[in-house]
């Protein structure tokens, strides 16, 4: 459901890349508040690159990115912190701080940005862990967890400050189907109850049909967006062969799975 409000993320004519190469060219799109927005595309097409642009880790070659009306590209100091406080990021490989326990990982942002008393921080951190089903693992080090658990812990950390927008790179890659569905439900829940906006990179088709409000599909050759819309729309009428094949393989694999 596209809510016709002011967009919370506005990407305008973004061109991005690395020293030697341009990865994305002239990409524009909007994300609206409360939306679950999915970024699709083959390996190496620039999904992570796009995400890193949106969270201000990489500077675009040209173009504009507004997060909740603030220009993240040129923001400095306090202004930048205001933007960053409103976003949470889950990295493709978790990126938990290896020298801290799970609890400390989550507490860190609270320590830096709030003046809560320490017991309150502990409690809030435990609540976040409970939310991703990791209660009881507070004092584990990240290396003592399985890959999927690390991913869930990373989500808990991304939510430490209750941000308005959560960015997730490869939400369900490497997770078993049950956990993956649980995560989908968690995302849906958070989006509906807390009105959190999600920008998620994923390839799991069942997951896309379950949670996506809108999808964009990137392509390496086109260096940009080749399709945008609701997943059902794209499945039924997309002009692009690649998009068509992607979504219809979804249907066939789903029907064989249920058969």
């Amino acid at each position, binding site marked *: 459901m596209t809510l016709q409000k002011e967009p919370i993320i506005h990407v305008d004519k973004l061109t991005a890349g690395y020293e030697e190469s341009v990865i994305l060219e002239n990409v524009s799109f909007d994300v609206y508040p409360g939306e679950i927005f999915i970024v699709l595309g083959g390996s190496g097409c620039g999904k992570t690159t796009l995400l*890193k642009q949106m*969270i*201000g*880790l990489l500077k675009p070659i040209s173009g504009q990115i507004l997060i909740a009306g603030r220009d993240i590209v040129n923001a400095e100091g306090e202004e*930048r*912190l205001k933007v*960053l*406080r409103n*976003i949470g*990021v889950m*990295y*493709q*490989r*978790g*990126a*938990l*701080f*290896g*020298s801290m326990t799970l609890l400390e990982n989550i507490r*860190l*942002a609270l320590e*830096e*940005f709030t003046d809560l008393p320490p017991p309150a921080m502990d409690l809030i951190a435990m609540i976040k862990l409970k939310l991703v089903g990791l209660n009881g693992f507070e004092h584990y080090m990240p290396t003592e967890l399985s890959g999927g658990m690390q991913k869930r812990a990373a989500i808990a*950390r991304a939510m430490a400050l209750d941000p308005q927008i959560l960015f997730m790179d490869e939400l369900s890659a490497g997770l078993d189907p049950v956990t993956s569905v649980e995560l989908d439900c968690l995302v849906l829940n958070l989006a509906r109850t807390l009105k959190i906006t999600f920008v998620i990179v994923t390839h799991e088709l069942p997951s896309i049909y379950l949670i996506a409000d809108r999808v964009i599909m990137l392509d390496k050759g086109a260096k940009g967006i080749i399709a945008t819309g609701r997943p059902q729309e794209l499945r039924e009428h997309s002009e692009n062969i690649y998009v068509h094949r992607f979504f219809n393989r979804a249907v066939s694999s789903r029907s064989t799975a249920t058969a």
Partner: protein
Amino acid sequence: MPVEKQKTEETTVAIEAETIHPDTLVLKIAGRLDSETTGKAWREATGILDHSSPARLIVEAAEIEYCDGSGIGLLLELHLRQNKTGGAFEIRNLRSEFQQLLSLFNPAEFEKPVNQRLEHDAFPEEVGEATYNYLKDLKLLVAFVGEIVISLINAFLNPRRVRWKDVFHVLETAGIDALPVIALISFIMGLILAFQSAIPMRQFGADIYVANLVALSMLRELGPLMTAIVLVGRSGSAFAAEIGTMKINEEIDAMTTMGIDPFQFLIVPRIVAAFLVTPLLAVYADLIGLIGGSIVVMSLGFPLVTYIQQVVSAVTYIDFMGGLLKSFVFGIVVSAMGCFRGMQTKIGASAVGISTTQAVVSGIILIVFIDGIFSVVYYYLGI
């Protein structure tokens, strides 16, 4: 025996060359082209082509029984050679299953050398590139030093923002844990210095001046220098490895997006700790070095009191403070270099190793360089 026969068939390939027309060469390939046999076939076939570059090459493939990836490689290679010399190429009667495999590869895609990065550039080009990279590195280093200074000033203005827990942790690993190594090295240093100088000095009846020599060189030069070198090896490398690993695991990115300044969080505690601990370690090294020297002097027959008196009369406060000042600088340089190389770590598993090595090498070079500058400055100041 049939089994025997099958076995020989399995591992053989035969190539026959025949010139059927002044400029048409037919290569008849028979047998199995697999990873075991293709090497031989490759050498034979390319050997034939090296001698004659036919305007037209026909590969008669009817008798190829089996052809896997390496066989396809050979066929492609023949095709590419013909393309290069501008000759025509044709494969006849290749079985359809192999034909299908071959048709997956377009020779044009393989015309460029596989690994361009490994190709060596011309010497001047390499020199130019190395110089450019060196200057770029220097520019980054200057920017890094600037950021460190800003962070340190910030830390000084708001000491509560410094993560003292981390500072104490580094003080422990870089300082306390280094005590045994530094003790060992300085003790032996003092011993060697005294011993080596005692023999020639004795000839002049100047054995007691061994104490002066040991005291001056330990306090002014060797104490701070050896401490700094141990610090590079133990802590500079550790800083580079720790920060480099965090960089690779995207932990630094995560920190940045959490609004936490990696400089404030990771680098300031390490530099503050090194700044505090290096002079202390240097004093410790001085002391142990003097103890080492005392053993030799006492074995020459002097009482300990004489040694101590000689040492006290030989060195001034200025000598001691000069050495101390150096170790403050060394501490900052070593830790900053470790952190700098760590932050510079690129992607990949070998990247951390590279940064660690670079941290140690550039740390040692910088230390020796700075030590030289100090010597010159002290000389002109008359210290």
